[in-house]
C-alpha cells in the first residue's frame, strides 16, 4: 500500500464521516423544528418593553414627526436597558425568523419574509458586534447612539413585518402574537 493510497482512503473515510454527520444532524434539526409548537416558539421570546422599543425606533423612522433624533444617547441607554437589552433583542431576532418559518410550513410563499428577516437579523448582529467591540475599547458611549438606535429600528421593523405576515395569511394566533411582540 503506497502512502498516496493510504492518504486517499483515510480522506475518503473522513469526508464521508463529516458529510454523514452533518446530514444526520441537520435532518434531526429540521425534524425537531418541524415539530416545534406555537407555545414553544412564543416561550422562547425574551421580554422587551414594546412601547420603549417603538419609541426609540419611531424617533429615527417616523417622517411625520417634526424633528427626528430627539432622544439623547443616555435616554436610549436607559430605555433599552443597556447592553443587556440589546443582547435580548438579538436573541429575539432568531425567534422572529422562526415565527416566519413557522408560517412557511403551510405557506411556502412566506419564504420571502423569512429571507428579509434573516438579512435584518444579520444586520442587528453586526450592530451589536460593533457595540461589543466599542465596549471593549472603551468607546461605548460614542458608538451607542448610532448603532443601538439603528439596531432597535431594524428590530422594530422586523416585528412589524412578522405581524403583517400573520395578518395577511389570517393566522388564528395573531392576537396572541401581538401581545408577545
Amino acid at each position, binding site marked *: 500500500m*503506497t502512502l*498516496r*493510497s493510504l*492518504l*486517499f*482512503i483515510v*480522506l*475518503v473515510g473522513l*469526508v*464521508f464521516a463529516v*458529510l*454523514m454527520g*452533518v*446530514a444526520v444532524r*441537520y*435532518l434531526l*434539526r*429540521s*425534524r425537531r*423544528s*418541524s415539530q416545534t409548537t406555537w407555545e414553544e416558539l412564543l416561550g422562547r421570546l425574551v421580554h422587551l418593553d414594546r412601547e420603549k422599543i417603538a419609541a426609540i425606533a419611531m424617533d*429615527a*423612522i417616523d417622517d411625520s414627526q417634526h424633528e427626528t433624533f430627539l432622544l439623547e444617547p443616555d435616554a436610549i441607554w436607559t430605555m433599552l436597558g443597556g447592553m443587556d437589552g440589546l443582547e435580548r433583542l438579538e436573541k429575539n431576532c432568531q425567534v422572529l*425568523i*422562526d415565527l*416566519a*418559518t*413557522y408560517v*412557511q*410550513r*403551510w*405557506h*411556502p*410563499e*412566506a*419564504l*420571502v*419574509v*423569512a*429571507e*428579509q428577516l*434573516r*438579512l*435584518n437579523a*444579520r*444586520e442587528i448582529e453586526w450592530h451589536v458586534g460593533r457595540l461589543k467591540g466599542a465596549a471593549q475599547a472603551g468607546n461605548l458611549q460614542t458608538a451607542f447612539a*448610532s448603532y443601538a438606535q*439603528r439596531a432597535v*429600528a*431594524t428590530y422594530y*421593523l422586523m416585528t*412589524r*413585518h412578522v405581524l*403583517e*405576515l400573520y395578518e*395577511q*395569511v389570517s393566522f388564528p394566533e395573531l392576537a396572541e402574537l401581538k401581545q408577545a411582540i
Partner: protein
Amino acid sequence: MAVIPLLVAIFACLCAIVDLISGATEPRRPPRTGVQSMGLSGVRQFLWATSFSSTCVLLAVLLLRKRAASLRAFTFLIAFYVAKTLVLFRLALHFGVQSRPYALTYWSLSYVDDAIQFVVFYELVKKVFCPTGVWARDTRRAFQWLVAASILLALGLAMLASPPTARWYETYLLRSNFFVSVLESGLFVGIMVLSSTVGLPWKTHAARVAQGFGACALSSMVLEGARNYFGLGPGRRAYGVVAYIETVIYIGCIGFWIVSLWQEAPAPRELPEAMLMQIYTLQRRVEGDLGRIRNWRRS
C-alpha cells in the same frame, strides 16, 4: 414535457416485450460465455431483475400518481434508467458483460446518466428553494458557495485517487465516476443543510427525492472510493463485490421513492394572488425603510 417520459416508457416496454419474446429465449447470436449467456451469476441476475422491475414500478407510480408533471427531470431520469437497463440487457444477452460493445455502451450511458442527474439536482433545488419562483438572495449566495466548495472537494479527492489499472482510460473512468459521486454527495448534503437553516418544508415530494439522492450519493462515494482504491486488478473481484452492494443500495433508494411518491405530500395552503402581492409590497416597503435607517447618519 410529461409526454417525453411517457414515450420513453412506452418504447422501453416495447423493447422489453421484444426482448422477452425473441432475445431472452433465443439469442440471435451465440453467447460468448456459455450457459450463463450474459456472463452473470444467478445472484447478479436476480439483483438486475429486481432493480429493473422496481424502477418500472417507480416509473408507473410517477405517471399514475401524476407526479411526473412536477418532477419532469426526475421522471425522465427514471425512464432513462428503464431504457438503459433494457439496452444493456440486450447487449449482455448478445455479447456478454465482458464484451467491448457492452463496456462501451455501459460507460457512455453512465455519463448521460450523470448529466441527467445534474439536471434533476437543479430541478429539485428550484423546487425546494424557490417556491415563489424567485431565489432568496442569501440562499443563492450560500448555494453558489456550496457548488464551488463541492467541486473543489471532489476535484481534490479525485486527483488524489490512483486506482491500479491496466489502461489509462480505466483510470479516467474510475476517477471521473468518483468525482461525480463526491460532487453529488456535497451538493445533496449542502441543500439539506441550507433548507434546514432557512426552515423550508422537508416533507414535499421534491425534498423526499433529494433525500434519496443524498443517501445514494453518500453510499456511492464510499463505493467509488473503494473501486478507486482496489482498482481493476486481476479477476476484478473487488469491482464485482462493489457492484453487488451498489445494486442493493439502488434498490433500497428506489423502494424509498416508490413509498414516498405514492403517498400524498402535505399540501401547502396557497395564498390568494392579492395576498401574495401584499407580501411582496410589504417586503419592498420594509426594504425602503431599512434603506433609510442604513443611510440616516451617513450624510
